[in-house]
C-alpha cells in the first residue's frame, strides 16, 4: 500500500511540474506536447491507486501475457496443517478450522432456527484478526464406490457362470440385483455434502514464523467456535485442506469426466 501511495504522489507531482514547465515555454507545439505528457502522467498516477500491482508487470511483460505470479498459488506445508503463499519478501500461512454442523432445518424448532441464522453473525466477531467463513457445497466423489460396486458385480457374474447349485445361484443372483440397483441409484443421483470452515492467515518473514502464528490464530478460533456453537471445531489437515483450497479436489477430475460422458450424445 505504501508503494501505491509513493507512485501516486510521484506521478501526480510530476504532472504538476510538467504543467508549470509548459507555462514557462513559448513554443506552442512544445507546450501542447507537455500538456499531453501531464495528462498521461495524471491518469497514470491516479491509476496507480488501484493498478500498481499490474501496471509495473504490464510494462515489463512481453507478448500478450502479464505475469503477476507464476508459482503455484499455494504450497502445502510438510506437516500438512497450513498452506503457504509467498508474496514479495513476506510469507503468508493459512490455517483452516472445520466446523461440523450437521443439523438440518427440518429437525429444528423456531428458536433453534433463529439461533442458527444468527450463528454466522456471531462467528464473525470471534476473532480480532480478519478471517474467512465458508459454507461449501460440493459433489461427493463416488467414483471409488462405483469401482468397488462394478468389481463386485464382475466377481458375482463370474461366480454365477460357474455355479451349479440352484440355492447358491439364487442367492448370488439376489446379490447381483442388489449391486445393480445400488449402481443405478449412484449413477442417477449426485450426492452432495455441505461443509463449513473458517480460514485464517498470518504473515511472517519466514515459513516457520507465519505457520506458528496462523496455527495459534486457528486454535483460538477453533476454541471460540466450540464454546459458541457447542460443536467440536478442529484444525483441518492435509486432505481436508485440499478440499477447501484445491479446485481439482473440490471438483474432482473423475466427476468431471463422468459428467462430460453423460452429456455426450451418442
Amino acid at each position, binding site marked *: *500500500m505504501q508503494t501505491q501511495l509513493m507512485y501516486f504522489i510521484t506521478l501526480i507531482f510530476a*504532472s*504538476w511540474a510538467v*504543467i508549470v514547465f*509548459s*507555462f514557462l515555454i513559448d513554443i*506552442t507545439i512544445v507546450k*501542447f506536447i507537455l*500538456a*499531453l505528457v*501531464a*495528462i498521461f*502522467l*495524471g*491518469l497514470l*498516477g*491516479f491509476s496507480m*491507486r*488501484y*493498478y500498481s*500491482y*499490474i501496471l509495473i508487470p*504490464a510494462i515489463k*511483460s512481453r507478448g*500478450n501475457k502479464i*505475469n*503477476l*505470479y*507464476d*508459482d503455484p*498459488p499455494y504450497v502445502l506445508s510438510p506437516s500438512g496443517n497450513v498452506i503457504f*503463499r509467498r508474496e514479495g519478501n513476506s510469507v*503468508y500461512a*493459512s490455517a483452516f478450522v472445520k466446523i461440523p454442523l450437521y443439523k*438440518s*432445518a427440518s429437525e*429444528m424448532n423456531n428458536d433453534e*432456527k433463529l439461533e442458527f*441464522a*444468527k450463528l*454466522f*453473525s456471531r462467528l*464473525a*466477531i470471534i*476473532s480480532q484478526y*480478519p*478471517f474467512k467463513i*465458508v459454507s*461449501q*457445497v*460440493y*459433489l461427493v466423489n463416488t467414483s471409488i464406490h462405483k469401482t468397488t460396486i462394478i468389481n463386485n458385480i464382475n466377481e458375482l457374474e463370474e461366480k454365477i457362470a460357474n455355479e451349479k447349485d440352484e440355492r447358491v445361484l439364487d442367492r448370488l443372483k439376489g446379490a447381483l440385483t442388489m449391486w445393480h440397483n445400488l449402481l443405478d441409484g449412484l449413477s442417477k443421483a449426485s450426492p*452432495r455434502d455441505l461443509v463449513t470452515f473458517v480460514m485464517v*492467515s498470518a504473515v511472517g518473514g519466514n515459513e516457520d514464523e507465519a505457520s506458528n502464528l496462523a496455527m495459534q490464530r486457528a486454535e483460538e478460533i477453533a476454541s471460540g467456535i466450540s464454546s459458541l456453537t457447542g460443536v467440536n471445531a478442529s484444525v483441518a489437515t492435509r486432505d481436508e485442506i485440499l478440499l477447501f*483450497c484445491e479446485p481439482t479436489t473440490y*471438483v474432482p*477430475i473423475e466427476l*468431471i469426466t463422468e*459428467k*462430460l460422458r453423460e452429456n455426450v450424445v451418442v
Partner: protein
Amino acid sequence: MIYLGFGALTFIILLFSAGAYGPFSIIVSALAIFGIAMIFLINYADFLVFPVVTMLLNKEIIVGKDYIIPSKQDCVLRYVNNIYYAIGYLTANIYNYVFTAEQVSEFDEERMLESVDKWENLVSNIDFSFRYNIIAIGEDVQKYREDIEGKIGFYEFQLNREMMSGNPNQQTIDELQRKINVMRARLERLSREERPVSAIMYIETIGYGVTEKSAIDDLNAKLNRLQVAFNIFDVSITRVVGRELYYLFNSDFVVYPKETLFSIFAKQA
C-alpha cells in the same frame, strides 16, 4: 476523496489554463475533461474500465502456475489433465439478515427464521459445487464509536440549521432524523458490547469443459443459476470482473491483513 481531489487537480489546472496553449486550447480542454471523466470512472467503476483495456490490448494475466485470467477478466482459468476449470465469483451481501444497522425487529426475526429453510432448499436444489464466503474484519471499537459520534454531531448540526432556516423542508428534516436514529441505534448496540464488523461476502463456483469456451459457458450458466437461486434471499448480487477478481482468487489461499482488505475492497467492506 483525497486521492480523487489530488488526481483531478492536474486536469482542473489544465482546464482553467487551456487558453495558454493557443491554437491547441480546445484539444487541451477536451482532454482535461476526458481526464476528469476517466478518474471518476476509475474511482467509481473501475470494473468497467479495466477489462475494456485488457480486452483492447488482448492481455491475459498469469495469476499462478497454470492459472490465467483471460482478457475479458470475468473468470480465472486453469488447465489441468486436459480439462479446463473456470472459477467465477458473485458478490452477495446479506446485510439485511444479520448485519443490519438498526435493531432486529420481529419482522426481521421472521425473515431470519425463513432464511434457514431457504438456505436448505437452495443447497438441496443446486446440483453443482459452490461456496458462500464471508470475510469478516473486526473493527476498532473506539474508532468506530468516535466515527459514529462525529456523524451524529454533524447530522444534528445540519438538522438545527435546517430547522432555523426561514423555509424548513420537512423531507430533509425527516431524512436527517432517520440518519440520527440509525446512528444512535448503532451506538446503543456498541454499548451492549456488540463488536462492529465489516464483511465482504461473495459466492464462488467452478465451471469445467474440454475447451476454454465450454468451461466459461458452463461457469456462466452456473453463476446465472446461483444468481436466480440467491434472489430468494433478497441480496444484492453482482458478477465480479476486473481487479477484484484477482484479489478474490487470492483470497482462496490468503486472508489479507485488515488494511490491505480495506484498500482492495473499499466499496464492499
